[in-house]
């Protein structure tokens, strides 16, 4: 008899096998992180239920079982390996196993060269991810599956990590997308992620077996896998127990049963986890702290019977909806704080009804709305004002501290902070997609450990050794918690540790502050998360400063909105009245826009009374039915100019060029080079999501930047269109523009052809030219290029190549000159019209619409002119930077930042591709250069999918700040 235990991130599975490998007993239980006591409990019940079990051999598997196994001297079997052993025994002939667990995703290829693949540390698409998504949709897990069954359409959702997906789903919810469609989209995301991330080009075929919780419980998820893979996989009986059974099969040493139970019960870990000092040393300390913060109160009044004008403030946030009613003396008459169950419209409706119920004669003089749901609420209820969140929060903070220098708001999904300079918002920090795990993370964790959130954070206040969880993303934190538990951290320590990590995340990831002096001493903290005393304390301790937390910390956005409404009221609100509320109706339809190649999926909300709101659009075209005015948008110009180089004819044959990364600037060079040699050129088409899908399963590193990932799709699309020769050279060096200490390309741009060549199977079928060429050495280039190309084309001559090189350099210069000329023209026009000029700075490939997600058009819609960094970088002479200035593209950023310092009408917005390691250096330097000259730095992080809502907040806040500075 053999016993196997599978200790996973959320559950423990136990299997007892007979000598004939029949399952005699099995059990599946959630452990709520009480791993050791649960194991002891399970083992005790095994002994009671299975006679003779106490003489069995025992082995433990599962990621959370490692520590216990080590300490108790029980054999540990790696879980993927255990699965493999179990499958070989129970389902012989299996070709592929797909197993999704709580936090892991695995694919095992058993036949034809065994290989095991496991998700990296930065990969979602697992059970925990599905859990999080269900929480976000506010449905129980089982219902998610039922919902998905009745889907009609799917949306693209990133599943790389839960945080990313949230930022995709939230806008969908706010726009009114159907939950059924979102549910199925979540499954699709998981499937895509698993296949792309783990199979990496290896075909999944033959006898495919589905294992693990999510695939066992969710039929719809299995169906999705079947559909995408074009197979029909099996989910065997006992699919939850394969790891445990595998462990049992591997168990060799039988151990004294009582001893194990006792050992496991006594297992406490050695306490060797990293920890922080306690939040509070004593009860007294806590009481003083409480008393200090209790003083920050707001004036109150009664809504019932209130005779004066009232002002409505609403904050439709990502996870909660906050609403207030303000009186003439700025007194708070009424407020609500509710969780946003996916759709803010009914919540606002019932809030307004409630107001009329409490005070039927209420005189609403104005209303303002802010937050993610601003636009839909504004349209649904004809609200007077929609304001950007930063402005709302600043307005509210000023009421509590007129000379406030720094405001930080940590909400469910967002961290928003800004500095106040000369009474205006300056220097906005918003959390980027990867570090979003703030308030809702605490919530999810509390749920997972089955604590109410209030109780959960409370128990951390007096923890002796708050766990040090680092300051990265939530996926990592989950695992850090697991590790700490392994070494014996208590729930108290974990609770406190999570609160501290929220603060550290905000301070070091988002704000990048070293000390309070950088932020100013006058700090107002707000947002629902700061109602949590542990978080508040952690913040004060980390900053070494006492801060102000208003009593209505969670309501500040709404409070600010109501103050704004009051200041700007024209006496009578435009909001719909009591009778219109009664007949209020909200209809949602989904449609594809089809007015341009983006073909955005639109959610059209119509409201009784004629209100209409379209969501999901990247531009105003579906709303106004007018083409976008791109005359002052250089991104648009650049892309169109580049398109004129995409094709040429020649008698020597056709050469394909993938239009990605540095080709976005060098296409004119190579086009002219090869055309001169009498080759024809065909560039791959401008990126779209279909093109990306074509190559994404061959990407070997899931943490490389999205522009590089897109390259796979470009090369594949060339091969698919029967191109036989592809030219994509390696370039360590770029052209020297004499702006920096050196003129490298970044390692990814320089050598990505190597990755393409080594990982795309179809490349073997064609001639793939990835020679190392030195375009930086104008004189040597033709000679070396001749040597390199002679290997492929025996008939070309050095003379021809010399001529071609000359033409190539000339065309490149001409291309760059055209861009600069257009830029100058835009600047002149903007100067004449008195418009703001935004320098949308990044890399040449950021003009790719699939990479920039139409951010250029979005910014343009605010009536500003857009130029790129290369227009103004030649206006600056080489200067000393504090970092080593060694990449050509990045030197342009520094030069552009320097130049902007001399102009009142210019501001810089830097586009940063997620995963760009080089930008960890450039962003700080660009910020420094700008701030030295009193300029505001704005950064937008972009990836496969981008939250345009957050981009809007940034741009609107920046515009508000520019306006205030004037």
């Amino acid at each position, binding site marked *: 008899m053999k016993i196997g235990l599978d200790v996973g991130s959320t559950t423990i599975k136990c299997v007892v096998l007979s000598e004939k490998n029949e399952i005699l007993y099995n059990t599946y239980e959630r452990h709520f992180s009480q791993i050791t006591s649960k194991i002891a409990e399970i083992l005790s019940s095994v002994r009671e239920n299975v006679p003779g079990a106490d003489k069995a051999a025992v082995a433990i598997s599962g990621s959370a079982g490692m520590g216990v196994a080590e300490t108790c001297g029980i054999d540990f079997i790696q879980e993927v390996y255990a699965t493999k052993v179990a499958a070989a025994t129970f389902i012989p002939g299996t070709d592929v196993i797909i197993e999704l667990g709580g936090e892991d995703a695995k694919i095992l290829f058993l036949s034809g060269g065994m290989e095991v693949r496991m998700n990296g540390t930065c990969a979602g698409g697992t059970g925990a991810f599905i859990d999080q998504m269900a929480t976000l949709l506010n449905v129980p897990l089982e219902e998610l599956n039922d919902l998905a069954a009745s889907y009609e359409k799917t949306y693209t959702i990133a599943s790389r990590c839960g945080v990313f997906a949230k930022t995709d789903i939230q806008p969908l919810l706010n726009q009114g997308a159907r939950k059924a469609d979102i549910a199925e989209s979540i499954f699709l995301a998981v499937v895509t992620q698993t296949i792309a991330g783990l199979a990496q080009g290896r075909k999944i075929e033959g006898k495919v077996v589905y294992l693990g919780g999510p695939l066992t419980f969710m039929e719809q998820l299995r169906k999705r896998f079947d559909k995408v893979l074009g197979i029909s996989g099996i989910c065997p009986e006992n699919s939850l127990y394969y790891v445990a059974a595998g462990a049992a099969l591997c168990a060799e040493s039988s151990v004294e049963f009582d001893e194990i139970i006792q050992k496991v019960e006594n297992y406490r870990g050695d306490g060797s986890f990293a920890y922080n000092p306690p939040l509070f040393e004593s009860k007294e300390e806590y009481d003083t702290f409480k008393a200090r913060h209790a003083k920050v109160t707001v004036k109150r009044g009664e809504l019932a019977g209130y005779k004066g004008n009232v002002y409505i403030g609403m904050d439709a946030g990502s996870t909660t909806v906050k609403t207030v009613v303000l009186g003439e003396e700025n007194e708070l008459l009424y407020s609500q704080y509710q969780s946003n169950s996916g759709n803010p419209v009914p919540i606002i409706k019932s809030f307004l009804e409630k107001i009329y119920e409490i005070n039927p004669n209420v005189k609403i003089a104005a209303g303002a709305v802010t937050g993610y749901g601003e636009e839909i609420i504004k349209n649904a209820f004809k609200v007077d004002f929609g304001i950007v969140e930063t402005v709302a929060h600043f307005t509210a903070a000023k009421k509590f501290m007129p000379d406030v220098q720094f405001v930080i708001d940590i909400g469910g999904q967002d961290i928003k902070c800004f500095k106040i300079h000369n009474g205006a918002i300056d220097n906005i920090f918003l959390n980027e997609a990867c570090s979003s795990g703030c308030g809702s993370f605490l919530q999810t964790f509390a749920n997972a450990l089955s604590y109410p959130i209030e109780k959960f954070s409370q128990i951390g206040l007096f923890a002796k050794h708050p766990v040090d969880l680092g*300051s990265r993303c939530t996926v990592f934190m989950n695992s850090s918690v697991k590790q700490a538990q392994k070494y014996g951290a208590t729930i108290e320590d974990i609770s406190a540790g999570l609160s501290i990590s929220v603060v550290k995340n905000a301070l070091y990831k988002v704000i990048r502050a070293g000390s309070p002096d950088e932020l100013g001493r006058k700090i107002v903290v707000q947002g629902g998360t700061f109602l949590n005393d542990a978080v508040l304390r952690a913040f004060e301790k980390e900053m070494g400063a006492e801060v102000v937390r208003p009593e209505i910390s969670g309501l500040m956005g709404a409070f600010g909105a109501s103050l704004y409404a009051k200041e700007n009221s024209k006496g009578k609100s435009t909001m719909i009245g009591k009778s219109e509320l009664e007949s209020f109706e909200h209809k949602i339809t989904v449609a594809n826009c089809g007015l341009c190649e983006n073909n955005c999926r639109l959610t059209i909300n119509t409201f009784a009374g004629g209100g209409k709101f379209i969501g999901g659009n990247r531009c105003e075209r579906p709303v106004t039915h007018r083409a976008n005015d791109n005359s002052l948008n250089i991104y648009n110009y650049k892309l169109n100019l580049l398109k004129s180089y995409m094709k040429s004819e020649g008698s020597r044959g056709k050469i394909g060029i993938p239009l990605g990364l540095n080709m976005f600037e060098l296409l004119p060079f190579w086009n002219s080079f090869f055309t001169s040699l009498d080759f024809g050129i065909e560039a791959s088409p401008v990126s779209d999501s279909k093109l990306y899908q074509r190559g994404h399963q061959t990407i070997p590193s899931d943490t490389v930047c999205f522009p590089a990932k897109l390259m796979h799709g470009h090369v594949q699309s060339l091969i698919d269109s029967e191109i036989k020769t592809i030219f994509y050279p390696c370039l360590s060096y770029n052209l020297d523009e004499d702006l920096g200490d050196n003129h490298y390309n970044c390692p990814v741009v320089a050598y990505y052809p190597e990755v393409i060549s080594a990982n795309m199977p179809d490349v073997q079928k064609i001639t793939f030219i990835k020679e190392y060429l030195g375009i930086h050495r104008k004189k040597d280039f033709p000679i070396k290029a001749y040597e390199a190309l002679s290997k492929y084309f025996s008939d070309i001559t050095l003379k021809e190549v010399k001529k071609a090189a000359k033409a190539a350099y000339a065309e490149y210069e001409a291309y760059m000159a055209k861009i600069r000329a257009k830029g100058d023209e835009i600047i002149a026009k903007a100067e004449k019209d008195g418009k703001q000029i935004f320098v949308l700075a990044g890399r040449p490939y950021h003009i790719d619409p699939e990479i920039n997600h139409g951010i250029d058009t979005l910014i343009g819609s605010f009536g500003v002119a857009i130029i790129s960094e290369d227009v103004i970088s030649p206006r600056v002479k080489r200067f000393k930077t504090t970092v080593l200035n060694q990449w050509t593209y990045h030197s342009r950023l520094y030069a552009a930042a320097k130049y902007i310092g001399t102009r009142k009408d210019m501001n810089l917005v830097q586009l940063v591709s997620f995963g760009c390691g080089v930008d960890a250096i450039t962003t700080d330097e660009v910020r420094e250069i700008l701030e030295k000259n009193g300029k505001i730095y704005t950064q937008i992080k972009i990836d496969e999918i981008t939250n345009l809502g957050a981009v809007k907040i940034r741009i609107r806040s920046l515009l508000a700040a520019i306006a205030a500075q004037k």
Partner: protein
Amino acid sequence: MAKLIYDKGGRLIFTKEMKKDYTILLPMMAPIQFKMIQNVFLHYGYNAVLLDTSGPEIAQAGLKYVHNDTCYPALLVIGQFIDALQSGKYDLNRTALMITQTGGGCRASNYIHLLRKALVKAGFEKIPVISLNLSGLEKNSGFSLTLPMLRRIIASLVYGDTLMLLHNQVKPYEVNQGESQKLVEYYTEKLSNGFNKGMGIKAKQISQNLDEIAKAFSEIIVVKTPKVKVGVVGEIYVKYARLGNNDLESFLANEGCEVCVPGIMGFSLFKVDNRLEDIKLYGGSKIKYRIVKILMDYLTKMETMMIASTAKYGFTPPGEYAHTKTLVKDVIGYGSKMGEGWLLTAEMLELTETGYENIVCTQPFGCLPNHICGKGMIRKIKSIDERANIVAIDYDPGAPRVNQENRIKLMLAVAKERLTSQPKTEKTHKKLEHSSEKRTNKEVVGA
């Protein structure tokens, strides 16, 4: 405090006056090699201290003062410096820092600048930072890398690499635990003392010393039980530094593995060779080529001696650079030079060839060159040599050890299964058997 002198660009210079009584802190990477290099600095009148600190507060300090998306080695090295400066152990008026600077196209060339930024942020702007480089990037009046020093540093790498290799090959099998470690310590001291007297630097002496060392290790009594053989490659810092890789070597030792970590000499040869390759690929000065070639030949000569001595006493010698290089012909271009470049790919192939086919490929999270030559090449390596059993592990301040170890255990589970099921018939494994035969006279049967 010495008088603070700045260059034209505002950089604080390490002056001659500072050389007299300043302590120079060095970050730790590969313990054996760095200890010897520290001794070289001490001998030449620099009061060098090698920082061997560890603990979570180092990463915390790094996170606080360096952009969090910067690679992990920068966070750790800078965190270690700042943690040391804040510890109160060093007189802040008499302390300088030293850091290497390569000048390559990777982010690593910027570490020194990030360090200076961090120092300003932490209030240590009066601490001078010395750049240790061969490219003439930054100069300091109080520090110069003289030829005698350079020769001793190269010798340190030669000896250090050899000691590391022998230690790794003997320790898992030694009967009296700790013997090989004792030899490492003994020779580190002996060789350093030799340097100070001008001994052990000339080729002939080096060759003799290497022979003596290899012989000494071969005399340690061992029991040859079959063990999983694991190669460790990756970004240079996380590959060698315990602080960076959560003490990977100890973890593997506890799992009962024999470990092979390719040495720093191979990396040095690679970096020098890159300059030659650049000229070959893109054109350049012939004179420069010849000068670099002299250095290349010198290093190659050292390498040849390391191989000869270790092979003579039955050990698996370090891979020969020239041979390693041929392994990636048609796999990845020689122009791929940033970070560890093609060498990383080549080392994985070389390890597979010599029986260390179970490989941990370490890199900082988001390491740019390793997207190409590490993770980007694993698929290709497996198609060339199907024995390769590679796991890529990312290191960063948030990446939990439990996940890393779990993934390594998966790789080891496959390795262990192969170890028990496969007879040792592959010819490339012969070297090992050959070596154990030679050493049977010293083995204790059944111990």
